[in-house]
């Protein structure tokens, strides 16, 4: 996609087609000949893994839509019918429900990869923002998909999430009524969620195309963060990265299969196998694991509007990140101090996820009794969430802006090839292993 093309049509038909619709040229330039840095590690395989995840979700989702009934009286039973009566329905549904979790595992690794290696920095800001858009769409899709089985968690999750918008001043109530199509989450809500849950994956696929387009303009980043300087720094995408991605996808699918076939409900909540009852909320209501960090941020704030704003703000941080990080050094491989703060950031995200899955008043340390600080016991999930949430925001708003100006980075290599070259060796030889077969 970036300018020069090495494609040469080999057959008469390809020449004929190339002058009319150069689709073979596009595929050749994008996935065969595309020059890719030769030092990509396995953290770079998650883009391909995510493409596979999206494909699996769309295919299994279309199958499920053939059997699912989006009506409050039939939704739960139609899902059980898929599990019991539809041929291989159990397999297709477990692929879809676990596929959502696999999708989020992969996307979180992909995002942390980007954070660590500075993938959001110039000239890849638009690429990064498109990724954030995909992530937002994924969250909306996953949330609405979780509502469809119409179990207790589905229903009350939908109630809680739609009520978030009720926190907005003035327009809040009108917006929730509009979202519901009534005075509460009910059949109209289920119908529209089904419709949108079907639509959004195709919007994701569209933004993925833009994401890849934006990727192919500057080309891939790489673990050193140093720009590609010459042809010696790259190898063609095929076979080097088709095979590497293919291997990573195979390993990922093995893990996926372990969940589907041996632990299909490990990542879900048993309460969602109880049919929705608008009159009783389950004692312990939690979102799916991939939303827990944001749920913890929401609960950490003792004010409805502020909680909602902070929760959305946590995602907004990602969108403006390219302009918050002041460091000119892309890869944290050469930023030892930033690496430390990044490690704490990952820990903070995990802690937030842990807190989100527990009750707010649960003790962090077993039987230790401490004192009341403001509105809650110091030894509670609420305070742990507050500490972790504070660090989450501080990482974006304080650490990255200031650290880029104050830290002393390690010297960066002159080129991608330089770090692996033995001293005094001629550059051309070791720098092009592909020529040695």
């Amino acid at each position: 996609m970036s300018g020069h093309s090495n494609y040469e049509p080999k057959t008469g038909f390809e020449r004929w087609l190339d002058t009319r619709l150069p689709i073979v040229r596009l595929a050749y330039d994008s996935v065969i000949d595309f020059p890719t840095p030769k030092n990509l590690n396995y953290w770079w395989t998650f883009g391909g893994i995510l493409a596979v995840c999206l494909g699996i979700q769309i295919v299994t989702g279309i199958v499920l839509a053939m059997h699912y009934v989006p009506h409050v009286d039939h939704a739960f039973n139609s899902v059980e019918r898929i599990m019991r009566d539809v041929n291989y329905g159990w397999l297709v549904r477990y692929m879809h429900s676990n596929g959502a979790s696999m999708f989020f595992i992969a996307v979180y690794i992909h995002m942390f990869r980007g954070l660590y290696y500075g993938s959001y920095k110039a000239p890849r800001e638009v690429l990064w923002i498109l990724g954030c858009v995909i992530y937002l769409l994924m969250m909306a899709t996953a949330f609405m998909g979780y509502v469809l089985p119409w179990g207790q968690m589905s229903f009350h999750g939908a109630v809680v999430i739609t009520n978030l918008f009720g926190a907005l001043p003035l327009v809040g109530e009108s917006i929730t009524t509009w979202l519901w199509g009534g005075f509460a989450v009910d059949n109209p809500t289920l119908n529209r969620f089904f419709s949108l849950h079907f639509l959004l994956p195709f919007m994701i696929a569209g933004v993925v195309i833009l994401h890849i387009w934006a990727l192919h303009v500057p080309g891939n980043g790489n673990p050193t963060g140093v720009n590609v300087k010459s042809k010696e720094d790259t190898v063609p995408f095929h076979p080097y990265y088709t095979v590497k991605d293919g291997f990573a996808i195979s390993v990922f699918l093995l893990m996926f299969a372990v969940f589907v076939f041996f632990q299909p409900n490990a990542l879900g909540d048993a309460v969602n196998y109880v049919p929705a009852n608008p009159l009783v909320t389950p004692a312990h209501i939690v979102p799916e694991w991939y939303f827990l960090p944001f749920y913890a941020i929401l609960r950490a704030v003792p004010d409805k509007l502020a909680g909602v704003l902070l929760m959305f703000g946590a995602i907004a941080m990602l969108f403006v990140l390219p302009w918050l990080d002041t460091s000119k050094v892309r890869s944290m491989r050469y930023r030892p101090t930033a690496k430390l703060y990044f490690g704490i950031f990952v820990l903070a995200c995990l802690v937030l996820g842990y807190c989100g899955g527990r009750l707010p008043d649960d003790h962090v340390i077993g039987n230790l009794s401490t004192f009341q600080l403001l509105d809650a016991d110091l030894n509670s999930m609420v305070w742990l969430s507050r500490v972790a949430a504070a660090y989450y925001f501080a990482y974006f708003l304080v650490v990255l802006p200031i650290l880029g100006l104050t830290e002393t980075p390690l010297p960066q290599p002159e080129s991608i090839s330089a770090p692996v070259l033995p001293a005094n060796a001629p550059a051309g030889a070791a720098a092009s292993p592909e020529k040695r077969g």
Partner: protein
Amino acid sequence: MADTVVGANPDPHASGEDPNRRDFIHIAAAVMAVGAVGALAWPFIDQMNPAGDTLALASVEFDLTKVEAGQQVTIKWRGKPLFIRNRTGKEIAEAIKDDTADLRDPQTDEERHKPGKAQWLILIGTCTHLGCVPTFGGGDYGGWFCPCHGSHYDTSGRIRKGPAPKNLAVPDYAFLSDTKVKVG
């Protein structure tokens, strides 16, 4: 040193082996991938076949006392109409008389009902042409007439005129008692 490195570049086929070990890995990996996709394709095809609950509802029982002589009752069986016709003596006689007529799909009336139960004619009510539901008592032969493309069936449900190729189909059924049948 650079010269030795360049010179060490082995042609994949230089060893004389053909196919060599690298070809074997390529072929084995491709075969595994194709096999996996193929194995995964079957569940995605089979899910469109009738589900367990659909198959479980594949047979119905019917009380024949609801049908007066000369009448027909239509019930739904496997999503299709099922004709249960209580034939009069005159209709049976006409059907037997036509056993020797020039039939497109030759069958005797005897073959179209259970032994000793000539009055009960049980047929799948979809025209063998393109699946419309023929109307009772219509057509030139007093059996059924299909409004879609004009097929005429006689009082034994045999095709006599029009585009349909076959007689109206007789489903698998059995008399549970004199007044009760089980279809399917």
